């Protein structure tokens, strides 16, 4: 047996007992340590634990760019930083307000107000206190991470409209998502998300908005990001290409300058919108960063309605442009012989009431009626056709209903009918109303886009082109209202005469060399004109011109409205001519030079105000 393996030594019981006591002392020592932390200092550590936490930082997806038909950028996005105020620790915020006021130049009162406004939202959602941080602001936040952990930076993608107010009403603008939208899409939107609010930004919001990413980070008690829990990359929005031609748009915008009104230029074969103007307008860049409440209220309540897209939303009397519908109805319905002639002494009496004409036109047939825009001729045509037929053709040619353009909030306009009057005004149709409607006054209301499509339809034999702004759009449906060749020929000859014949209402002022430019003028009284005249306010009529080229099966159709512009021939027609000219210049390889409508000499006579009711200017 080896020497060590002999049980000849007693076990040191005393020392083992001592070891036990030491072990117990060790455990007591440790328990005292835990007691200090968990009982004595537990409040302090609970506070520190609260400052440890998860922060969710959104990665904002850039919205898709908008390009014109040739790929030129109309709208894009750029990265910028927002400064967030984290609200999960009220005590910390209180201490930080002073330094934030000094460092970022945001008044304490403003900060408190913003915090108060957000008090019902969950605490973990931060408040954006500075949407567009400057370099100095960013540096301030970065350098005060330790002592101002309530501040955080968020990279955002802001919308940029490099052309400012060009095409603004069509493009629309973006803004913070509304509560209704959030309720409809609770999974998609959170407060503060940017969505399209109007125009194309709204229409194609789903395509261009992309999907925001999210980075969840763990921050420690001094606000330092310790690690990233997960990182979902943002998916950028898809770019969209528009049918807009920036060159034509520029020409139209320049011509409009500060005039009030609208213009729409379309490819008359496809319905592609080449240019769209609405005046007065706004700068969508103002909305890209949070728009100040005051400025928003001003834009929204401005009586000149700068936010309205007049090309699709202005519902106005078409004036003499409506005579194209009358002529078409007369020829197509065959209710009146094509060689119908009227003697115009400068006025006519119907149902005991005198209706004026601009001139005494003498003997007038259909061609002269269109070319010289003789009201008396069309009063008679209207009386013979009756409101039902007028209604049928106006509606058939697309008036009084939406064109279906890919923009939100298009207005339908109105073509009055007997039914409508009975439904709305609860009385029978007055035959005298038919006389007013015959020259595009009275209850008839159209939008510029409807007139453009109507004229194109008459010139192409009855195809109602589908107006659209999205290039390569699928699912486009043309309407059809077939017209006989004979009708098309006679009416388009009339419209050719308006521009090119010596007695045309444009007096030959908008003729274009080598281009078969045609069209129809309109000068429409503003609703309530009589009343306003009585009040002594001088309010000029709305000038209309819808032009197209060539004479039949046109390439391009352009409708222009100059509100308060007076004669359509002098206010609207030159703008349309410039756009059509630019279109052909470009087609022939010349880059268009924006010209202005101002250099066109005004028509000889200025129209006297105080004209009798129903009198219609060419």
């Amino acid at each position, binding site marked *: 047996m080896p020497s060590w393996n002999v049980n000849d030594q007693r076990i040191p019981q005393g020392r083992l007992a001592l*070891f*036990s006591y030491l*072990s117990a002392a*060790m*455990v007591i020592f440790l328990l005292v340590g835990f007691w200090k932390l*968990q009982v004595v200092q537990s409040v302090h*550590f609970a506070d520190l634990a609260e400052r440890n936490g998860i922060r969710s930082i959104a990665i904002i997806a850039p919205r898709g760019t908008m390009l014109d038909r040739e790929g030129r950028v109309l709208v894009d996005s750029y990265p910028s930083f927002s400064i967030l105020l984290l609200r999960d620790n009220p005590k910390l915020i209180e201490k930080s307000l002073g330094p934030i006021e000094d460092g970022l130049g945001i008044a304490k009162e403003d900060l408190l107000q913003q915090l108060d406004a957000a008090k019902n939202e969950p605490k973990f959602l931060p408040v954006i206190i500075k949407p567009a941080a400057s370099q100095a602001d960013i540096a301030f936040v970065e350098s005060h991470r330790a002592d101002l952990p309530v501040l955080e930076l968020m990279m955002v993608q802001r919308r940029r409209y490099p052309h400012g107010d060009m095409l603004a009403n069509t493009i629309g603008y973006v803004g913070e998502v509304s509560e209704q939208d959030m309720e409809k899409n609770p999974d998609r939107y959170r407060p503060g998300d940017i969505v399209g609010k109007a125009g194309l930004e709204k229409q194609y919001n789903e395509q261009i908005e992309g999907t925001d990413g999210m980075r969840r980070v763990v921050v*420690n008690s001094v606000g330092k990001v310790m690690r990233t829990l997960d990182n979902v990359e943002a998916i950028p929005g898809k770019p969209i290409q528009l049918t807009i031609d920036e060159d034509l748009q520029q020409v139209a915008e320049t011509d409009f300058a500060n005039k009030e009104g609208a213009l729409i230029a379309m490819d008359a074969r496809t319905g592609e919108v080449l240019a769209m103007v609405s005046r007065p307008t706004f700068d969508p860049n103002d909305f890209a960063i949070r728009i100040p409440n005051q400025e928003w209220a001003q834009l929204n309540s401005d009586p000149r309605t700068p936010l309205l897209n007049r090309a699709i939303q202005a519902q106005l009397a078409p004036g003499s442009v409506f005579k194209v519908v009358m002529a078409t109805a007369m020829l197509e319905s065959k209710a009146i012989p094509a060689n119908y002639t009227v003697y115009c002494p400068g006025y006519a009496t119907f149902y005991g009431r005198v209706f004026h004409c601009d001139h005494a036109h003498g003997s007038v047939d259909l061609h002269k009626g269109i070319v010289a825009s003789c009201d008396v001729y069309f009063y008679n045509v209207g009386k013979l056709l009756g409101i039902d037929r007028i209604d049928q053709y106006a509606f058939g040619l697309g008036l009084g209903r939406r064109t279906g353009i890919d923009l939100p909030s298009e207005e339908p306009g109105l073509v009055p009918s007997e039914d409508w009057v009975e439904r709305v005004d609860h009385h029978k149709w007055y035959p005298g109303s038919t006389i007013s409607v015959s020259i595009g006054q009275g209850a008839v209301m159209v939008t510029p886009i409807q007139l453009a499509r109507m004229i194109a339809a008459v010139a192409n034999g009855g195809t109602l082109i589908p107006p659209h702004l999205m290039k390569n759009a699928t699912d486009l449906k043309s309407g059809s209202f077939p017209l006989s060749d004979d009708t098309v020929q006679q009416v388009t000859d009339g419209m050719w005469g308006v521009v090119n014949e010596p007695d045309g209402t444009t007096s030959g002022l908008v003729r274009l060399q080598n281009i078969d430019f045609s069209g129809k003028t309109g000068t429409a009284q503003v609703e309530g004109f009589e009343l306003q005249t009585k009040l002594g306010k001088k309010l000029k009529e709305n000038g209309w011109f819808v032009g197209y080229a060539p004479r039949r099966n046109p390439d391009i159709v352009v409708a222009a409205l100059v509100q308060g512009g007076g004669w359509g021939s002098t206010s609207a027609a030159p703008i349309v001519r410039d756009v059509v000219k630019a279109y052909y210049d470009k087609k022939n390889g010349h880059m268009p030079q924006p010209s202005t409508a101002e250099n066109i000499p005004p028509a000889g006579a200025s129209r006297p105000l105080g004209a009798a009711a129903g009198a219609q200017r060419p």
Partner: protein
Amino acid sequence: MKDRPRIQDFDWTLLGIVGAISGMGVLEIYSSTHASAMAGMQWKQLIWIAIGLAGMLLISRIDYHTLMDQAPTLYAAGIAGLLVVLVIGYSRLGAKRWISLGGLVNLQVSEIMKLIIIIVLARYFAEVRTERLTLSDLLKIGILTLIPVGLILKQPDLGTAMVLVPVAVVGAFFAGIHWKHAAVGLILVALLVPLGWNMRRHLKPYQQQRIQTFLHPEEDQRGAGYQIFQSEIAVGSGGFWGKGFGKGSQNQLGFVPVRYSDFILAALAEEQGFIGVCLVLLLYLGLILRLVDNAQKAKDRAGMYVVMGVTAILGFHVLVNASMVIGYMPVTGIPLPLMSYGGSATAFVFLALGLVMNVRMRRFVN
């Protein structure tokens, strides 16, 4: 004459305490990891416990006297193993601690070295015939201990290296150390600490950092001091009653460093509060007292040394780990026995307890 040791002679009380501690460990591992990429770790830990139990049974069958007969061979094999680790060891997290045994099994030799040092030193102390250890005894014990300590430090694994020392210290205490020698030893340690501090350039950067952090935690709340600071936050915020199972924000959000292993006591302290910590530490005290009881009842001094060697290592683990969690000691990577997740460490504890069972089962055998 020799009776066969019987299974009834197992220390069932000890096993009960071990089961309770292991069970709390498995639950806390589940709580710490179920919501993370490491979910399911508790099953691995249970498998290790099962393997440990099998190993315990096995080692309890081999008479500890037989093991002690082989002490020189075991010691030589252990040292050889440590050298192999240094040369061809499998490197993980910047330290060479594992030998690949093929497949997924990586053997941490230093854990086995703990068992070997218990047996080797028990044999040495049992051979001492005098009432007091002589200086030459102390020197030999020192050399026997410091060779593996040095090799393990070289891996580098400061924690495991340190763990070997208490086996020698506790053994010396029972073998009878002259108070003068003890005093000189203490003075030497007191002198060596500053000397070691001056030698810190020879330490790995992370070791320097850990010591620096321990000495000045407030200077480094975002770096290495972060671990201790976060551990303290977790423990302190747990309060008296705790935040509830699976509800500790510091634990669940991962602020507690290696919350399933070295800092599992911090995770438990947050979720179960001071009450839970009391339960755990008292269970450990019960474990130690039960081990001491086994030492008292050992048939011979050799058996006592074996049991107390195991006790010294386990006690040291608990002391150092719990102290680290509350910021009383630097981060050394010493796990909490039976609770911290870890295959080799868990297996070691059960094998060590197998030695204790071994001694107990043979107390009446002659």
